[in-house]
């Protein structure tokens, strides 16, 4: 009986290890590959062994090159530090705008009185049905009409409000806060902005964190939109530049690994730190939506 138990535990451990390996192997491969000498990568690729992954000669040369900090990098025109800053700037700007405008919008739908409010809500929720990738080119036409193509504005403005975030925040604001609080504050002569700021927002923090997280990851990982909206490399975001300079030729695997690691690690680290909120956000879309 005891032996059998030990076997099932061993079996479980084996299954878990295999599963974790399937999902993490590519990440381990690129991260370790990004800190080894270029000529080692292909040399030890086959046969499959410990050395396929673990470097003999550890070096951050590939990172220095893609950041444009050495002669090779400058000659090739790499400036990934700049592109990473662009990614940070754009993602943060969208998150800040999104927190402001979506919170205001959700407050309107969840707590304020307005004639024909349900029609306005329909107007918002019907956008769920508009396919995302299939309408990128028409969106580009609109941005061109506004003369915003090839600017930071093009990367930020279309996403400053989101129907998904509004919908999610409405749930948070409806459920957990008693309406008597609003009415009492109104009696005391507080304005709507004051009520939103000092009653609603403090009670919606988990919802705000969750949506900020999802929004940051969404913008950081966007590819098709910045690809068509921006052509100037100095304002372009990191994923597009990596695909354009490293992904197409794949001559220097170390540089591709280094670039991929730079684009991946920030979101993965944020995700690991705030996983609870992230999982809650995704689970809510499915179970409530």
């Amino acid at each position, binding site marked *: 009986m005891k032996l059998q138990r030990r076997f099932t535990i061993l079996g*479980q451990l084996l*299954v*878990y290890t295999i599963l974790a390996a399937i*999902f*993490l*192997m590519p*990440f381990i*491969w690129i991260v370790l590959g990004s800190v080894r000498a270029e000529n080692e990568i292909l040399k030890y*690729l*086959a*046969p*499959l062994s410990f050395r396929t992954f673990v470097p003999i000669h550890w070096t951050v040369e590939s990172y220095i090159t893609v950041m444009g900090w050495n002669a090779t990098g400058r000659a090739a025109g790499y400036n990934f530090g700049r592109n990473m800053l662009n990614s940070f700037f754009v993602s943060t700007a969208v998150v800040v705008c999104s927190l402001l*405008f979506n919170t*205001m*919008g959700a*407050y*309107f*739908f969840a707590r*304020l*009185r*307005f*004639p024909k409010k349900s029609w*306005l809500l329909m107007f*918002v929720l019907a*956008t769920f049905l*508009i*396919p995302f*990738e*299939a*309408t990128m*080119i*028409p969106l580009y*036409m*609109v941005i*061109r009409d506004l003369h915003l193509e090839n600017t930071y504005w093009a990367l930020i403005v*279309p996403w*400053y*409000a989101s*129907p998904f975030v509004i919908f999610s925040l409405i749930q948070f604001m409806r459920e957990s806060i008693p309406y008597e609080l609003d009415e009492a504050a109104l009696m005391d002569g507080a304005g*709507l902005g004051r009520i939103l700021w000092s009653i609603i927002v403090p009670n919606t923090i988990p919802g705000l964190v969750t949506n900020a997280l999802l929004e940051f990851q969404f913008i950081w*990982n966007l*590819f*098709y939109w910045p690809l*068509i909206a921006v052509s100037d490399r100095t304002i372009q975001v990191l994923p*597009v530049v*990596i695909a354009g300079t490293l*992904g197409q030729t*794949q001559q220097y695997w170390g540089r591709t690994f280094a670039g991929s690691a730079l*684009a*991946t690690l920030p*979101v*993965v680290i944020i995700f*690991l730190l705030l*996983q609870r909120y*992230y*999982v809650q956000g*995704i*689970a809510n879309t*499915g*179970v409530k939506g």
Partner: protein
Amino acid sequence: MVTSNFVTWRQKRLALAFLFVLPALVNFAVFRYIPIYKAIVASLYQYSLLGGFGEFVGLAHYLRMLDDAVFWRSMQATGWYVLYKVPLQIVLSLGLALLLERQTTGTAIVRSAILTPMVTSVIIVSIIWSMMYHSQNGLFQSVLMALNLPKMAFLSDVNRAMPAIAVMMIWKDIGFSFIVFVAGLKGIPEVYYEAATVDGANPWQILRSITIPLLRPIMMFVIVTQTIFSFQVFVPVYQMSQGGPLDSTKVIVYYIYQQGFRFQDMGYASAISVVTLVLLLIVSWVQMRLIRTDE
């Protein structure tokens, strides 16, 4: 203020309330609804990004689609991709959710591992996997060698390119359906399982007659969203195969991109966008109906 006599206190309050929602409404009007209008208009004209609007051509672009063999092939390619990806992803993620439902240190680590690809950018995943699929030096070639199998082309093989892309996207997207299923499983009351066990049901019977029926609404939701997302796949094709070999991976959104940006035919690209939009609206309408009748 002269008008203040006519504006009542109530109207002022309503106007103030409306200001809260106005920025969001403007966003959706300008960046979500007007693009559709623009696409419909552009689809009726000769139109390119460089040349601007040309001649009015009416429905010519739509008629051209009927005779365009590449358009039909791209519809087919998209259909195959959805068929490869969605059912397998649903089955696998449900299996993983059942396996990792309990909260232990072990399952917590595996869960984090499953979710890591999901938070990574599609383009980065595509770059890494095209190196893993590399026909000479890919990591998969080393694995094949370790298993004593001959080298195999993946992305340059007509029959394997699309399944190869689908496998990668299942790997990337499985975290989404996994989380939703885990949450759904948590919502099933323990008493159902206890009652079934008392009645002597085996695990397979419990799965078939309790778990799956109770998960049905959530499963429908996942199928709907994944079908609609998958139908619009673009980035992996752009990065890994450029629609080839022999158009076997030329999915519809990639074909739209090619027409609009590579061939400078925005009018035709817009017409295909409009058709795709209508098609997806029909798909979601049908699937919504199915969910309704379910409940």
